[in-house]
């Protein structure tokens, strides 16, 4: 048990006690003694007198002295401890590293605020408790770890630096922080070394190759790990893992479909009536309630009509819990008024009607004016390499013999990033090329061409009720009409090993008519017959137009704007589009320029440290890249007037960061073999309680001082 003082110099204030004593002595009235006869009457009078006895001057003196004493004691920063005073107030100077977890999970709520504020205050007390002459360093343990303050002996400026640290939205990287600490300790001056880390022990933050960590014998520090997670007052119940917006092209009006994945993080409790809301462009557009079983992950779909031209920016939000930041997931979506289709004619003819794409083009845009929401561009194979696929959503290869050399990779990249590829066959098609070069995209190989003579039975569609999004809208009458379509030629296909595909439509001989497969974010649709009249009479049927349109729109369903990337906090936004300068408007409203990576076509924007919606703008003129890399990232631009809005992208927190699973003491001890390690838990969120079980008596002493002053005032007033 001991009482120590942080600033003993203030104890000099105790000398001030002499002041009231001197005043008392100087102002003391000379007491005279008089022999008097009726002393007992004086006593009676004293009892009767309204003016009671005069104040006890000695009591006043004592109160004044105590007030001064308590003030100087309070200023001296008294710390009361039940434990070893040397541990409480080390007398020898030391090198101390404070590792502060400023990751997102530290925003969890406590009774008096959040974990991060408590961690800062605990760190502050730790620093204050160190012997004079000690040096300090501060490392932030969010990813990437950062040495915020190099060695300094200036405790005040160090504490000021600590005060200014704000919580980040990043994930935890304790391993990286320890690696930095190890480097720092090698340059430290003192033989006594300490590391104090205040963290919530989020498991994902401790996965590092640096562990198990060992130090040189000379540099081995004493490690104190303060487990802040004990202070979390409300558990983190719900997390929104993903949210994704799609455009529903198949409906009559434009609908946006937002799919969210949510998880109940409580492993031992069902959650009932959890309120989920969809916010779009600043308004709450939809609200539902959901039920979760223990630890269950569910997906919820919201559909909202959306007629605006501009990008849809919003988030899915679950009702608040102990860690509100992971209850919100941002999404953005740039609706396209037009589905841009590039139609490659593999068999162009001088007479339009004989061209392979004559019917397709008319089906997609029947009146040659932009009434339809599909905008076809017909091109020949030779022009294909000059086309920028990024400008199109759907690519239709109609009776194309083979692609230019190496073009299949461009095609794969196009599909994997969300483009849709529709292939129709015909007499020009070279099955060998398709089977050899398009192995990644096509889940099937083209086997043989099947043809019927006029006497034979025609191939026809096998009409079956279908739930496929493209086919389910056709009425019975339409199906009856489609049944009459005659196919005389078609390819049979064979599945490739390990490829997954579906067959939404078959021919009457059970041959697949349409083969559909996913590749990356996009889709590939193979029609095993032709889309002109060479192999069938489908193009002159009334159902041809809706059938083609719906497949195109279906292909564009997973259409992401190419600029739209769903990123995690800290992930860079990357573009390979050349010829543009990109500007990004951050959620806080700042405008910054994306940096061009030297010697590469890549453009990057790395300042995505805040979750939210970022908006992209581009300008065709390429501005010269500034030489100084620092200047580039810090310059805040005002948006050029002629910049074109490209669309938004969303940045969200890393869901792993808010996983409730924590490291156990044993696991932590295994990471630091042979080191002196202490895992502490603060008993409460109060400032006065520290891991060292010391009580700061400043406030009680100040309160006592005020009490003394009040008492003194009362006595004087009574006089």
């Amino acid at each position, binding site marked *: 048990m001991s009482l120590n003082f942080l600033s003993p110099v203030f104890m000099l204030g105790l000398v001030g006690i002499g002041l009231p004593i001197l005043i008392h002595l100087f102002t003391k*009235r*000379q*007491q*005279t*003694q*008089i*022999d*008097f*006869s*009726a*002393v*007992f*009457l*004086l*006593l*009676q*009078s*004293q009892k*009767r*007198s309204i*003016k009671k*006895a*005069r104040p006890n001057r000695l009591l006043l003196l004592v109160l004044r002295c105590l007030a001064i004493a308590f003030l100087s004691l309070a200023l001296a920063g008294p710390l009361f401890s039940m434990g070893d005073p040397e541990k409480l107030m080390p007398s020898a100077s030391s090198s101390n590293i404070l590792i502060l977890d400023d990751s997102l999970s530290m925003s969890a709520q406590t009774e008096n605020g959040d974990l991060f504020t408590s961690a800062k205050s605990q760190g502050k007390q730790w620093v204050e408790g160190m012997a004079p002459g000690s040096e300090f360093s501060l490392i932030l343990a969010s990813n990437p770890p950062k040495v915020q303050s190099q060695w300094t002996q200036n405790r005040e400026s160090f504490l000021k630096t600590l005060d200014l640290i704000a919580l980040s939205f990043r994930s935890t990287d304790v391993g990286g922080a320890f690696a930095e600490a190890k480097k720092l300790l090698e340059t430290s001056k003192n033989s006594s070394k300490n590391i104090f880390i205040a963290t919530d022990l989020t498991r994902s933050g401790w996965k590092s190759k640096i562990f198990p960590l060992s130090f040189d014998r000379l540099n081995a520090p004493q490690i104190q790990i303060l487990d802040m997670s004990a202070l979390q007052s409300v558990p983190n119940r719900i997390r929104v893992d993903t949210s994704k917006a799609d455009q529903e092209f198949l409906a009559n009006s434009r609908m946006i479909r937002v799919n969210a994945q949510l998880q109940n993080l409580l492993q031992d409790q069902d959650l009932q009536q959890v309120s989920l809301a969809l916010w779009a462009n600043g308004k709450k557009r939809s609200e539902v309630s959901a039920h979760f079983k223990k630890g269950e992950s569910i997906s919820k779909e919201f559909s909202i009509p959306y007629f605006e031209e501009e990008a849809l920016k919003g988030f899915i939000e679950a009702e608040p819990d102990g860690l509100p930041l992971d209850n919100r997931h941002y999404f953005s979506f740039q609706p396209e008024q037009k589905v841009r289709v590039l139609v490659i004619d593999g068999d162009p003819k001088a007479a339009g009607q004989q061209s392979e794409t004559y019917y397709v083009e008319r089906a997609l845009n029947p009146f040659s004016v932009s009434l339809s929401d599909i905008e076809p561009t017909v091109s020949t194979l030779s022009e294909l390499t000059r086309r920028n696929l990024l400008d199109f959503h759907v690519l239709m290869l109609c009776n194309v013999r083979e692609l230019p050399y190496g073009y299949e990779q461009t095609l794969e990249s196009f599909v994997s990033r969300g483009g849709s590829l529709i292939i129709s066959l015909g007499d020009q098609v070279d099955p060998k090329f398709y089977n050899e070069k398009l192995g990644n995209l096509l889940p099937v190989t083209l086997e043989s061409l099947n043809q019927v003579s006029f006497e034979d039975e025609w191939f026809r569609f096998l009409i079956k009720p279908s739930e496929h999004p493209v086919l389910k809208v056709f009425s019975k009458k339409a199906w009856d009409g489609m049944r009459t379509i005659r196919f005389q030629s078609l390819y049979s296909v064979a599945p490739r090993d390990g490829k997954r595909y579906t067959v939404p439509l078959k021919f009457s001989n059970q041959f697949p008519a349409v083969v559909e497969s996913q590749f990356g974010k996009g889709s590939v649709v193979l029609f095993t017959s032709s889309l002109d009249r060479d192999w069938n009479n489908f193009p002159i049927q009334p159902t041809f137009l809706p059938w083609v349109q719906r497949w195109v729109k279906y292909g564009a369903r997973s259409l992401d704007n190419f600029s739209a990337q769903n990123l995690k906090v800290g992930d860079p936004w990357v573009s390979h589009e050349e010829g543009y300068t990109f500007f990004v408007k951050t959620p806080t409203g700042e405008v910054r320029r994306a940096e061009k990576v030297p010697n590469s076509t890549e453009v990057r924007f790395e300042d995505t440290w805040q979750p939210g919606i970022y908006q992209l703008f581009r300008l065709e003129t390429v501005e010269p890249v500034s030489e100084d890399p620092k200047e580039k990232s810090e310059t805040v631009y005002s948006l050029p007037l002629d910049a074109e809005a490209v669309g938004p992208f969303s940045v969200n927190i890393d869901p792993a960061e808010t996983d409730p699973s924590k490291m156990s003491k044993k696991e932590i001890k295994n990471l630091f073999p042979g080191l002196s390690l202490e895992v502490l838990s603060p008993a409460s969120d109060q400032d006065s309680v520290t891991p060292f079980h010391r009580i700061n008596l400043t406030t009680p002493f100040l309160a006592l001082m005020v009490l003394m002053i009040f008492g003194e005032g009362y006595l004087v007033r009574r006089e």
Partner: protein
Amino acid sequence: MTETTTHFTDPALVSRISNLSIHARNLVEGMLSGHHRSRHKGSSVEFAEYKDYSPGDEIRHIDWKVMGKTDKYHVKQFEQSTNLRCTVLLDASGSMDYRSPFNNGEAVQKMEYARMLTASLAYLLLKQFDAVGLTLFNESLVNHIPPRSKPSHFQNILHGLAEGAPKGNTRFGDVFNSLIERLPSRSLLIVVSDLLAKDEDLVKNLKLIRARGVETIVFHILHPDEVYFPFEGDIVFESLEDDAPVGLDPVDIREAYQKIIQDRIDSMTRTCPSLGVDYVFLQTDMPLEQALRYYLLRRNSMLNK
């Protein structure tokens, strides 16, 4: 014998006695000149009535002339004009020794004033052939000089007055109890005191005294300081009796104190007449003649009853 020696060897005592004597004489003589000086001169016996002789009566008191006329023995009865037997009961407790710290010329010390009053009364009484005794008291009787009417008795009284140094507490109860038996009935008791006693049974005792037919006069003597309490400053009041010292600022309690004192005086002024006791309040800055005059008036009225 030893006592007498002591009396006359202490020069201070002697001086005090002679002072007292001279003052008292001057005072009384001055007052009596031209008044009722001859009233009792030469009068010794006065015929009252006749009574039938009965054996045992003194033969010399038989009135032979009446015997000659009536042939019966009548005895002459005389109203004996016995001298008044007066006892002065002087308070010699500590409180009487109050000496004012102020140098105000008018007021004299309380004990001095009381002594002077007593001496004057004694002289006056003796001058009128009355018997005077003196009793000093504090908690109990300190000195008792029985009443005598010889003029030389004045010296004894003076000695008694000079000797007693005030000390101890005032306790009327005990004093009256022991005194009441010594007092002859139909006598005069003069109480000279500051009446500063904690026990409140003075009135009860006065009642008892009055019940025995003792005429009583109370001279209540207080120093002006004790009435007006003019002190100022931070003062510790040490008691002249056995009370604990009190430190206070007199200003705080002055009003309350004055009221208490005035209440006590008023109470006595009210109560004493109802008991048939004469009450005279004297402040030591008042002339003594006033007291003596009052006494003489009183004495006259007693004799005229």
